[in-house]
């Protein structure tokens, strides 16, 4: 880590299209900082896949790397194909909550079940940002959105909890105010043998914040900070006390045979015959 960190080492000279104050900037910068601290002088050892949505634009086309930007919700199976054929690469998926646990949810669960050795970074801004603020599977109960103008009549999904139980080897959730913890989690995720899932609670001041009454991104970050509780603290709270709280921390950190290991073991076996 002798050289100083510079975003320009890893980014093309293209201005990201995110709104001012968007959490996607934080996720992008924090991820690249983690990459730098892991000793990668460039992104040669990586391949990035993403679907459709503002958050899916984090790697593509901005990272100086191989990036595949695909259809809405389908980044995880594309990443699975890349990883199975190139087990030597760190394959990382970025996507929004709509992309990853809305339209693409089944792929996420199956990727965790298969324990495919990729990292999925879900930027959870609790809304469909790119399309202008429609309700997402992660939108809090009763919050108004453009397609639930009288308030959301559905409950929000706890994606990290779901993916922990689906068999992921590493699951962590942070908000965009937990930058150093998030950075460490990125490193752990990339180094995890098996499926890693990171949920980043992020601010979309444009399609979410403004509409539910936050003045700007700063107010949203205050809200994240005030309502975050660690996993350890959460264990001592009742379900009622946990209402409207954001539980942050590492939920799963374990080892299990990964998909590339089991698939290549089968190939070896079959070729003996």
């Amino acid at each position, binding site marked *: 880590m002798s050289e100083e960190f510079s975003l320009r080492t890893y980014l093309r000279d293209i201005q990201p299209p995110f709104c001012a104050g968007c959490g996607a900037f934080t996720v992008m910068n924090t991820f690249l900082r983690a990459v730098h601290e892991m000793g990668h002088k460039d992104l040669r050892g990586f391949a990035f896949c993403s679907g459709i949505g503002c958050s899916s634009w984090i790697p593509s086309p901005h990272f100086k790397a191989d990036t595949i930007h*695909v259809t809405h919700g389908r980044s995880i199976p594309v990443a699975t194909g890349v990883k199975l054929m190139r087990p030597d690469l760190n394959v990382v998926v970025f996507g929004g909550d709509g992309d990853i646990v809305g339209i693409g949810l089944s792929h996420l669960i199956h990727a965790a079940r298969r324990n495919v050795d990729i990292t999925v970074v879900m930027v959870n801004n609790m809304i469909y940002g790119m399309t202008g603020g429609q309700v997402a599977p992660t939108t809090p109960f009763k919050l108004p959105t453009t397609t639930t103008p009288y308030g959301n009549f559905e409950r929000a999904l706890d994606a990290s909890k779901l993916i922990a139980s689906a068999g992921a080897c590493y699951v962590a959730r942070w908000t965009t105010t937990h930058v150093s913890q998030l950075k460490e989690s990125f490193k752990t995720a990339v180094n995890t043998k098996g499926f890693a899932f990171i949920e980043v609670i992020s601010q979309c001041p444009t399609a979410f914040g403004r509409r539910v009454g936050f003045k700007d991104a700063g107010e949203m970050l205050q809200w994240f900070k005030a309502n975050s509780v660690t996993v350890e603290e959460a264990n001592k709270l009742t379900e009622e006390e946990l209402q409207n709280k954001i539980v942050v921390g590492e939920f799963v950190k374990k080892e299990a045979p990964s998909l590339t290991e089991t698939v290549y073991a089968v190939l070896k076996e079959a070729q003996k015959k």
Partner: protein
Amino acid sequence: MLNPGIKFMQGSQALAEAAITAGLRFFAGYPITPASEIAEHLAKELPKVGGIAIQMEDEIASIATIIGASWTGAKVMTATSGPGFSLMQENIGLAFMTETPLVIADMQRAGPSTGQATKCGQGDVMQARWGTHGDYASITLSPNSVQEMFDLTIRAFNLAEKYRTPVILLGDEIIAHMRESIIIPPKNSIEIVNRKKPRPGETMFFGGEEIPPMPSIGEGFNVTVTGSTHDEYGIRITADPVGHRKLVKRLVGKILNNADEIVEVEAYNTENCKIGVVSFGCTSRAVYEAVERANEKGVKTGFIRLKTLWPFPEKQVKVLAQTAKTILVPEMNLRQIFFEVTRVAEGAAKVVPLNKIGGGEMITPEEILAVLLKEGA
């Protein structure tokens, strides 16, 4: 992998073996009748040559996964039938837009929807042409024997690699399940095409020439692949009209401009017939007999059998329309290729449909012969 020689095998097996011969190294699919045998055969045989066969959670994931695998440089395939083919359509567009070589084997059954799952149909012809949204051009091949399941599968891979595009192998339940003797040619006599790769330092992978070179992921090219409209370098252009036109016209053009090379038909007596038959797939097997019997009865009959459905063999059908007074189009759907023949014939010949669906009942030689004799009278 099969040794050369005469073998007796099922259509699905021939397809799977040909795929391995063509260089298939990654297969992903989801079970569906009548295509499951392809996945089952590959699950057994592909690992023996170091390839991966994996069952995904659905057909959307299947095609998405092979798109990812293709970008690592591997030859890839998925296999399905109507319902799964419907689910794949969005990502067929993605493969077209990103110029990703892959083969989709669609073994047709009777639709729409679940229809008659175990019964043959030929109703996916137009879906193979226009299934995804937007403007695009499809390469679709139509085998009519177990031998052709082998030969056209090899060709499907070669075309996918040469034109950097998805290729649809449109079989049907009858050809997939049928068993026949076939000749497996010696390996060194089979032409195998591999995608053009960039030289070190090249940066234009999505333009600059009709079929640009394709780098693989992990080779240091920093390739930006996107299903959004993009420039020659793969950088998104979300609003520029000129860039969009240029890209989509090149993608459509690289197939339609090369139709002469892509199109293959089997033609018989087309210069000297009063009646012509245009058919494809399982139905064409009944046509052989009907045409022979019509000629025996003095009705000068010829046929064109479409080995390539898309791009549509316009030149060949046009010539037939100039010679023949009538063109009969038998197909196991409620008229699909009929409209193409009508379009191409431009009134030069009378085009007569003969359609039958349901229960997997084939159009019989007698049914075809009856129309030939009536029209030839």
